[in-house]
C-alpha cells in the first residue's frame, strides 16, 4: 500500500514534465536548446517522457560556437537521430560572417558572449516563441531569481526587477508578438539531483564527463584541454592529466577538474564531496561579480 508520497527525484521529474507539457500547450513554436551538455540531455530525456509515445513536439536547437569538442558534436547528432527529433543549428561563425557578431580580441578572447547574438538571431529567424533551456537555479546567483517561464522583450532582454510572479502551478506565457519566453524545466534540480537522476534513469553522456587522460594547460588557475582552439602560450607547458568536465561549454573556456571518477557512481561521490561549484571553472562567469546577470539581461541562455 502506497503512502502517496513521492521521492524528491519523482517530484522534480513530475514538475519538469508539467513544465514541458505546459510549454507545448501555451506556445506555437517552441524549441529545445540542446548542447549535448548533461542538463540539456536530461531535459530532452524528460521531454521524451512527457510526450511518450509521441515524438517530442519541438526541434532541438544548438547554438554552436564552432569551438566544441568533437565528442560533443558527435553525441549531439547521434542523439537527435536516436529520438527522431529535428535538429536546428545556429552557427556563431554565420553571425560573424554576417557582421552581426564581432570576434573578441585579446588574450582571453572567447566566443561565449557571441552566442547571445546567434541565439537571438536563431530565435528570430526560426520564429521560436519559447526556448526551453536546461538552466538551474542552483547554478548561479542571478539564475536563483529566474522564473520557470521567463519573459523576454522584443530585443530578447530579461528584466530581472520586473518579473511576473509565479504561483502554484499557474504559468503565464502570454506575450506580445516579437517577444518570447525562456522556459527552464530543471529550475529546481541541483547539480546533485541531475547526477542522481541520470544515474537512476541510466542516461548516456558524452565521454568527456568521465575521467580520462588528456593533454592540458593550466591558464589563470583553470585546467584547459589542449585542442585546435586552445594552444599552449609562451610559458605554459602541456601536461597529461586525468581529468573530467563538470560542465560542457565552449572548449576555450570550459575548465576541467582532475578526477579519477570514470563511472556515474564515482562522479556522484565526487559531487557530494565537492567544495567548488560546477561553474567555478567557467572563465565566462569570472569576468565580473554579476557576469551572469549582465549576460542574461542581454539575452544569454
Amino acid at each position: 500500500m502506497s503512502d502517496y508520497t513521492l521521492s524528491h527525484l519523482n517530484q522534480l521529474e513530475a514538475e519538469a514534465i508539467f513544465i514541458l507539457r505546459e510549454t507545448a500547450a501555451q506556445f506555437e513554436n517552441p524549441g529545445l536548446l540542446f548542447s549535448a551538455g548533461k542538463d540539456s540531455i536530461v531535459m530532452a530525456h524528460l521531454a521524451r517522457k512527457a510526450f511518450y509515445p509521441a515524438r517530442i513536439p519541438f526541434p532541438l536547437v544548438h547554438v554552436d560556437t564552432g569551438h566544441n569538442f568533437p565528442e560533443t558534436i558527435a553525441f549531439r547528432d547521434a542523439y537527435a537521430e536516436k529520438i527522431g527529433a529535428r535538429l536546428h543549428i545556429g552557427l556563431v561563425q554565420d553571425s560573424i560572417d554576417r557582421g552581426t557578431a564581432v570576434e573578441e580580441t585579446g588574450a582571453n578572447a572567447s566566443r561565449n558572449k557571441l552566442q547571445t547574438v546567434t541565439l537571438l538571431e536563431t530565435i528570430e529567424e526560426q520564429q521560436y516563441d519559447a526556448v526551453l533551456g536546461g538552466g538551474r537555479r542552483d547554478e548561479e546567483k542571478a539564475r536563483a531569481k529566474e522564473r520557470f517561464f521567463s519573459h523576454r522583450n522584443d530585443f530578447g532582454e530579461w528584466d530581472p526587477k520586473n518579473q511576473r510572479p509565479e504561483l502554484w502551478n499557474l504559468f503565464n506565457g502570454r506575450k506580445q508578438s516579437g517577444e518570447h519566453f525562456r522556459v527552464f524545466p530543471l529550475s529546481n534540480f541541483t547539480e546533485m539531483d541531475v547526477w542522481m537522476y541520470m544515474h537512476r534513469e541510466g542516461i548516456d553522456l558524452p565521454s568527456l564527463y568521465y575521467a580520462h587522460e588528456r593533454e592540458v594547460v593550466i591558464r589563470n588557475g583553470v585546467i584547459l584541454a589542449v585542442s585546435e582552439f586552445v594552444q599552449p602560450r609562451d610559458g605554459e607547458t602541456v601536461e597529461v592529466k586525468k581529468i573530467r568536465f563538470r560542465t560542457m561549454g565552449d572548449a576555450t573556456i570550459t575548465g576541467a577538474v582532475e578526477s579519477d571518477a570514470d563511472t556515474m557512481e564515482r562522479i556522484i561521490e565526487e559531487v557530494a564531496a565537492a567544495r567548488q561549484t560546477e561553474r567555478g571553472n567557467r572563465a565566462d562567469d569570472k569576468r565580473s561579480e554579476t557576469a551572469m546577470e549582465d549576460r542574461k539581461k542581454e539575452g544569454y541562455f
Partner: protein
Amino acid sequence: MDLLRFTTAGSVDDGKSTLIGRLLYDSKSIFEDQLEAIEESSRKKGDENVNLALLTDGLKAEREQGITIDVAYRYFATPKRKFIIADTPGHIQYTRNMVTGASTANLAIILIDARKGVIEQTKRHSFIANLLRIKHVVVAVNKMDLVDYSQEVYDGIVADYQSFASRLDNLVDITPIPISALNGDNIVEKSENMPWFEGSSLLYHLENVYVGGDENHVQARFPVQWVIRPQSDKFHDFRGFAGRVAGGVFRPGDEITVLPSGFGTRVKKIFHDGREMEEAFAPQSITMTLEDEIDISRGDMLVKANNPPDQGQNLEAMICWFSNQNLNPRAKFIIRQTTRETKAIVQNVSYKVDINTLRKEEDVASFTLNEIGRISLRTAAPLFYDSYNDNRHTGSFILIDPGTNETVAAGMLL
C-alpha cells in the same frame, strides 16, 4: 529521500539571511568559491564580517541597495531530505513576493527578533501563511544570545504569538524554537545555552516534520493539460490525456466524468514514461487513456463520477493584488485556473483586510498594489473547482491583464 519546500520571511535586520546562510553552511551547501566570492564582495564594500546575505541577494540592484527584491530559491540537502527554500523579502511593498513564495511551500519559518517580540510584520507573515494555507509554521525566536538566552523572554513571546495565531485556522502545526542564527544555537545541534528548551533543533524539525498529508488524496481531479496523439503506425489509435493529478487517486477501471461535457467513461490505462501504472496520485505527471472516444481537450477536467468538484461562473475568492495599476472593477481579465483559461470580471469587492491589524475594511471599490481582500467574480465559462482550503491546485487562480499580459492578481477560491 523526500522533499520539503519552505519559505522564510523576515525583515532586513532580523537575521533571515544569516539563518539561511547558517543552514546552507552547516549542511555544507555553500561552496568554497561562493564563500570566497562573498568574502571578496564584503571586503570591497567595507563590511566587517562576511555578509552571508550576499549569498541570497543575487541581483545587482539588490547588492547595491543591500535589500532583497525578489524571491530567491535556495537548495540544500541532508541525508534525510532535500530542501527548497523560497527566500522572500519582508518589506511591506513586497507582499506579492511573500505570497508567491508561500504558494508552493509546505512550511513557513517566521522569524521573530527576541528583543522586539511579536510585531506587525510577524502578524503580516502569519496572516499570509494562513491565507495560502501553509499548515506548518516554525516560529523561530532569533537573537536569543542578545536576551541572555532567557526562558522568560522566550515564553512571553510564544504566549503572545499563540494568542494572536489562535485566530488563524489553517496554521494547524505551530512549532516555536529559540535560536541564535549567528551563533548556531538550536540550528543543527541542540544548544547548551538553553538547557530549559525541550524541543528539537530547527534542522531536526525540518528533517522530520510530516508533510505527506498536505496533498488532497481523496477528491480525484485530473485537469487535462495536453492531448497526446502520436500519429504513427505503431500507435495509430492512441489518444492519451496528459496532465498532473491535482487530487485523489486514479486507477484503471475507475468510473469518471468528463467536465464540462458530463460524459461518463472509465479509465483504461495510466502511463508514466510508457510504463503502465496501477494508480496515480497528486502531484504525479501522467498520461491516461479512456475506454470510450470522447471529445476532450486542454482545460477539461476528469473527475471521479461519485465525487465531483464545484462548478459555476459566479465565484467568491480572496485575492492579492499585484499590479501598480489599481483594480478597475469594470475591467475584464483573463482567469487561469488549473489548465483552464477564460474571461472574468470582478463583480463586487466585499472587503479588504488590513494585514497589520487583520481588520476588515468594507465599503471599498478597488485594490492597490499588495492589498488583500475578498471579491465576487463572474467568469465567461464555468470553472471546475474546490475550495482552496480543500485543494490548493483546483482552488487557486491568477488574473491576467489582457492588455499588458501581466499577472495582476493571485486568488484563492472560497
